[in-house]
């Protein structure tokens, strides 16, 4: 059906692209919020992979990939909330969200 219209490799390429964009954002940005956004992008790329591999996998009728993805989104939402909370606390504490300036846990 849809899968036959668009081959699996297309989804995987899109996912890899989104992941790379996210990774690049997470690595290059100095602002913690933008790093978080990058991490979210990578997570979503992973979700996309889950859905795609489920849809083109041996048992597309079992809904396993979908359930997995929904759990993953829920966990990602919680993680984002925690992450943003942390960032706010760090900002309040250090008056900055620049990750290079926050290095007090250096060994």
């Amino acid at each position, binding site marked *: 059906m849809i899968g036959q219209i668009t081959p699996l490799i297309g989804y995987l390429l899109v996912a890899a692209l989104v992941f790379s964009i996210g990774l690049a954002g997470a690595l290059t940005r100095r602002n913690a919020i933008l790093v978080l956004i990058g991490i979210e992008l990578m997570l979503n790329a992973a979700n996309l992979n889950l859905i795609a591999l489920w849809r083109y996998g041996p048992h597309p009728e079992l809904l396993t990939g979908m359930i997995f993805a929904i759990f993953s989104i829920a966990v990602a939402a919680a993680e984002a909330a925690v992450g943003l909370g942390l960032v706010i606390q760090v900002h309040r504490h250090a008056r900055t969200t620049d990750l290079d300036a926050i290095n007090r846990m*250096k*060994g």
Partner: protein
Amino acid sequence: MQDAVLFTPQLKASPIAEILWLIPALPVAAAAVTALLGRSRRKTSATLAMVSLSFSLLLSLLAFAHVVSGWAHGAAVRETVNFTWMQVGMQVGTQSGAGSVDLGWVLDPLSAVMLVMVSFVSLLIFIYSIGYMAHEGNFTRFFCFLSLFAGAMLGVVAANSLLLLFICWELVGLTSYLLIGFWYERPAAVAAAKKAFLTTRMGDVFFLLGIVWLFAQTGTLLFYNHGAGSIEPTALAGLLAAPAALGLTAAGAIGLLIFCGAAGKSGQFPLHVWLPDAMEGPTPVSALIHAATMVAAGVFLIARVYPLMAAGAPLLATGVLTQAGRLAAGTTTALTVVTWVGAFTAVFAALIAVAQNDIKRILAYSTISQLGYMMAGLGMGGVAVGLFHLITHAFFKALLFMGAGSVIHGCHGEQDVRRMGGLRSDMPLTFLTYAIGMLALCGFPLLFSGFWSKDGILEAARHWSVARTPFYMLVLGVLLTAFYMTRQVAYVFFGYWRGSKSAQESPAVMTAPLGILAFFAMALGLIGTPAWPWFRAFLDGRAVGFMWRGFMEPGLLTLMAVSAAVVFLGLGLGWRFYGGQAPRPEEPDILEKTVPWAWAGLRGRLYVDEFYGVTVVAFYRWWARAADWLDRRLWGGVVAGVASLFGRWAGLSRFLDTNVVDGGFDKGCEELGVGGGLLARVQTGRVQTYLRILAGAVAALAAILIWSSRS
């Protein structure tokens, strides 16, 4: 002598015998209660002691009356109450009492007489003490000890078991020690107390050995137990059959061991040194313990175990048994030793008493001498002879000591007779009673008890089958006694006052007991005259009647005349030397001027103390030094060696610890620190650096996976 004893053992003890234990128990209980009282409860403590002892006296009199009434009905009373104290896991082959240690008490003429005497004299001395100790701070402590003493002494008397007797005996020794050292702030009193305790302990060690031996031989320590007691014929036969060393039978050897204990307590010759020093205690104590009762305990002990001492004596024909009840008993080794020691002590102590200046020391040596008489009387004449002198002596010597106490009290603590004098008019009551006591002690004829009791001993000595020497020794003792007592009385009561502060008569609480004792010092003689030997018959359980014939015995009147003459001679000599003009304290004694060489020796108490000083004491010093040296050098060296060994071992351990264990640990820590430092450099604290490494690692992993799946 034991053939004359007709005691019928009664199986059922009478009520009074059943509660005989109360007599010693009451004063002991009073002592226990007094011990818990505070120092300020003077009246309570004295009342408690008085009341308990009064009850004891009452019970003693009841017991005495019971024994007398039984005797009057022709049955000599000997009632015992025994009980098992503890079981011991030993089987000795005798009829009963095997494997158990029994205690008990006995009511017989001997214990009845002694109970009455001890409780009566004690009560009088208690009353006297209230006056004498009136200014004493430790009044309650004094009465506590005094009550304990009275209880223990009554226990000695009532005991039917040699073990119980020994327990009370040691308690008596303890209270003696406590009371001699009552004024513990005086070094002399403390030393005297120690000396008394240790010296009597010397005798008690042998006594204890005798007890153990007796128990091993007979399996019982009861005196009387319905035929199964240790001094009843069955056991004695066994003891006679058992041989000991040096030709003695076991009976004789045990008897001698027990006599050692008696000699220690009663101040017989080799062990007499403690008694004069014991006068450091308060005077009522000297009167009660060191004159009337405790020192007589040794004599009583010999009287109690007399069947043992006399066991195996060849019995004389009954024809020698005269009407007056005097007989020359067959004798044994043990009794011979008792006699010789007693006779020697009698003369020896009397000699020393001549040259003493302390009023109490004179009396102390006199006591030793009289105890010698008692021992000799026991040895030669049997229980009744020795015990009669014990009873009469208890009264007149207590009287003399209390009189001396009254004198000391009146002279404000002065004890040197040379600083007294002329007290006849200042202290008339004391003088009168003291004179009675002094005449009784000298054995003034007919009127005084001492004459009769001493005569009994002399009579026994005259008939003694072994030797005549003790008789002459004792006669010499009589002469000396009269002499030194005259000297003392002349010094104290006659002449003129040589002290500083004038003397005054003591209060009635002190003189009243003196009067009572003075009465008995005279009257007691009546129960032991040859015409009416009531006391002797009572002790032996024989019938008695009054007959003038008693005096008609061959030689008796002569003896009495001789004894009276000797007494008069002594009194006359004493008066000749000291009557009228006693020397001033600074001047030498009259005897010193006459026979200076003898005086020096007697003044120095014949150097017995010095002799012990250079032998026994010096030996102990040397021994202690040797032990000290051994301790320091030998054992100390061993200990120090072991200690240094351990020290070295510890040093080695420490070296290993610091260098090996600690060093290794420190090195390890250092290395870990360096490693940690290296790793810490990776931890830049920049999250993105970590992420970068992570991404690189994932990319590398992916590349490896892809590359490996290709090939």
